[in-house]
């Protein structure tokens, strides 16, 4: 949240001109703490609401924000299509690998083998990656960051907001209650976006601005 605040400040966007559309879930509680035009939408539906806002008033900076439950599980459909259409919005995914607010069930992004309240024997499925989904759907700006590096995260969000076209930032943010064992994450920071997105597919431990296509013309 601090990172989002810093990014908006750095981009010199006034609170009245920034619309942040929240999913329903842990991350959505930010609505009560961030001074912008905040909208608490529906679970899984922050992206389509944002798309409508941006189409109606292109002068607004529009951010759709949600957990991996909302954006990759319930509403993955919208992620794919917004990326395909290159809708000029920024999607922030707070990935804690689990449904936190409903007491810790497995989501589509839960690592394979992880024991959760809905997978006592361990999650049998390979996780779905928001980054991979966005890349293969045609997203122009795709990044992954780690929440404990606030400075870098803020910079990445700043660049995502400034990017004209669809941008996605996955923020790895393990839950201190339900996924304690995942809190310590190790990743490799990428200093320069790769040219061919296919090199990124299946790599969950790379952080930074991973891919950046040429922007939309004004």
């Amino acid at each position: 949240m601090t990172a989002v605040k810093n990014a908006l400040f750095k981009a010199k966007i006034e609170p009245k001109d920034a619309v942040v559309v929240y999913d329903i879930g842990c991350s959505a509680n930010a609505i009560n703490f961030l001074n912008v035009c905040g909208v608490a939408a529906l679970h899984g539906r922050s992206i389509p609401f944002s798309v409508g806002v941006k189409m109606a008033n292109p002068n607004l900076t529009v951010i759709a924000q949600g957990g991996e439950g909302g954006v990759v599980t319930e509403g993955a459909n919208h992620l794919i299509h917004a990326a395909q259409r290159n809708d000029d919005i920024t999607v922030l995914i707070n990935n804690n690998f689990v449904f936190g607010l409903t007491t810790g069930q497995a989501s589509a992004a839960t690592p394979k083998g992880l024991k959760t309240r809905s997978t006592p024997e361990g999650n049998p499925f390979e996780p779905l990656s928001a980054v991979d989904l966005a890349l293969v759907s045609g997203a122009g700006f795709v990044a992954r960051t780690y929440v404990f590096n606030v400075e870098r995260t803020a910079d990445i969000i700043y660049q995502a907001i400034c990017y004209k076209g669809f941008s996605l930032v996955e923020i790895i943010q393990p839950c201190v209650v339900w996924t304690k064992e995942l809190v310590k994450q190790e990743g490799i920071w990428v200093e320069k976006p790769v040219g061919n997105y296919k090199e990124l597919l299946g790599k969950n431990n790379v952080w930074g601005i991973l891919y950046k296509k040429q922007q939309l013309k004004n």
Partner: protein
Amino acid sequence: MMSAGETLSKALNRLGFYTLMYPEYPSRIRGGDNHVLVVFSKEKHLAPVEKIDLLLAFGKENYERHLGEIREIREIGERKGFEAGEIGITKIAEELGNPLVANTAGLGFIFKVLGFEHQMLEEQIKEEFSGKEEILKLNLEAARRGYEVGEVGGVRGFGEVGGRREVVNYSGNEAMVEGILKAGCGFAAIYPMTPINSILTMLSRSKVTVFRPEDEIAGMLAALGASYAGKRAMVATSGGGFSLMVEGLGMAGMAEIPIVCIVGQRTGPSTGMATFSSQADLNFVINAGQGEFPRIVLAPGDIGECQRLGKEAFYLAEKYQDPVILLTDKYLAESRFSEDERELRISEEQEGQEGQVGLENYERYRFTESGVSPRAFPGQTAFLTNSYEHDERGFSCEEAENRRKMMEKRGRKLVGLSGGFEPHFAKASRGKGFDFNLPMLVGWGSTKEIILDFLKGYPDYNFLHIWRPWPFPKEAVEILKKSKKIVVIEGNYSGQMADIIERFTFRKVKRVLRDDGRPFFKEELEDKLLR
């Protein structure tokens, strides 16, 4: 087939007749039993009929299928049924080298059999193909040759033309779009679905920003986003798509975002009979969504109301910051109707909306007497919009007292709503109001014209046309309570409007129902009401 029916209707309008064109087609792109029924009369208010006076069928199979619909033949040698191949219509198209013009040749044939001059048909064809010289020439030639062949059937003497009037011709969807455009609608999210597809087509050619979403969930949410950001916004769908929109509908109620939802009913449940009509989604749209929130349901009954309510829906949504549902059906949406041009002039285009500006300590959900709070748009000030229960500022809030006050605030909004119905007095009362000893017919939505057609022959009935089923009109309750006998006519299996009326009036009502995908036909309604 649809366009041939349209051309014929419009040519008949040029002759001064009122027309009704009712199409039936199976749920596939081409082929099958695809037919249109065209009814014309010097009088207004027309109902589809079971028995026809003239049949032109393409193909032996279709000919056999519809032969039984021809009204009794009185004179020896009189012929009312024709097959296109047999009378040489298909041959004309072959000779002209384009199978598609067989329809036009058929229209020429029909015009001749009915005893009309060729000229009006020609004028109509010219209008339809203007700017496409080659195709126009071909069609004019086909119509002319078909007209010549028309001698075969013998002139039947419908030739008495009711004098030229300016009669215009619209489908329900076309009239609705006129209203939408006059309302200054700025955003429409529409996922294709019968019977609202032509609304998507027409709006795509207009200045309205049109979004074809990935599904109806996204469509509803995007429309809410656009409305929130300051555009007059709408969605259009049928029952299946509306099912997906319901969660968003509730958000509109809670977050107080204006939204207009066109729901074109078709035969359910589930995929049902996708290209057939229904009035079975009334309960659904009135009750859709978890929790309780105010909403308005409008059900236009003719093209005039499609225009008027198509516009008014946006005004009401904005005034009360609530969802407004425009409930039509396949029969009204895709059939073509006619009306005097002067009756269809709706008022000027609505001006753009402005949010509240210059507000200090702005509160999106401020408690007010009317229940409606001042609305601002993003870009004007920073404020919160919330699908959670919230306080006046929009912060999530679970306190009991705040909750009670918020429910009351939202609940107050529609309390003052009046009107919502159109009374038609039995002839005997000479316009002086209702004679409550005479039976009271009640209809809503697309049954209006059909019931008015019935009243032409049987004027000793009162008739209440409900164009706003929800909130159910208060004044109508009083009228119904006084009526000796109430007969509710509607196109569903259980009698949903009848249930609503019984609930509000504590009166038992008679139900005249039809639920087979077709509108009420003239003969059927007479049979059911007079029996």
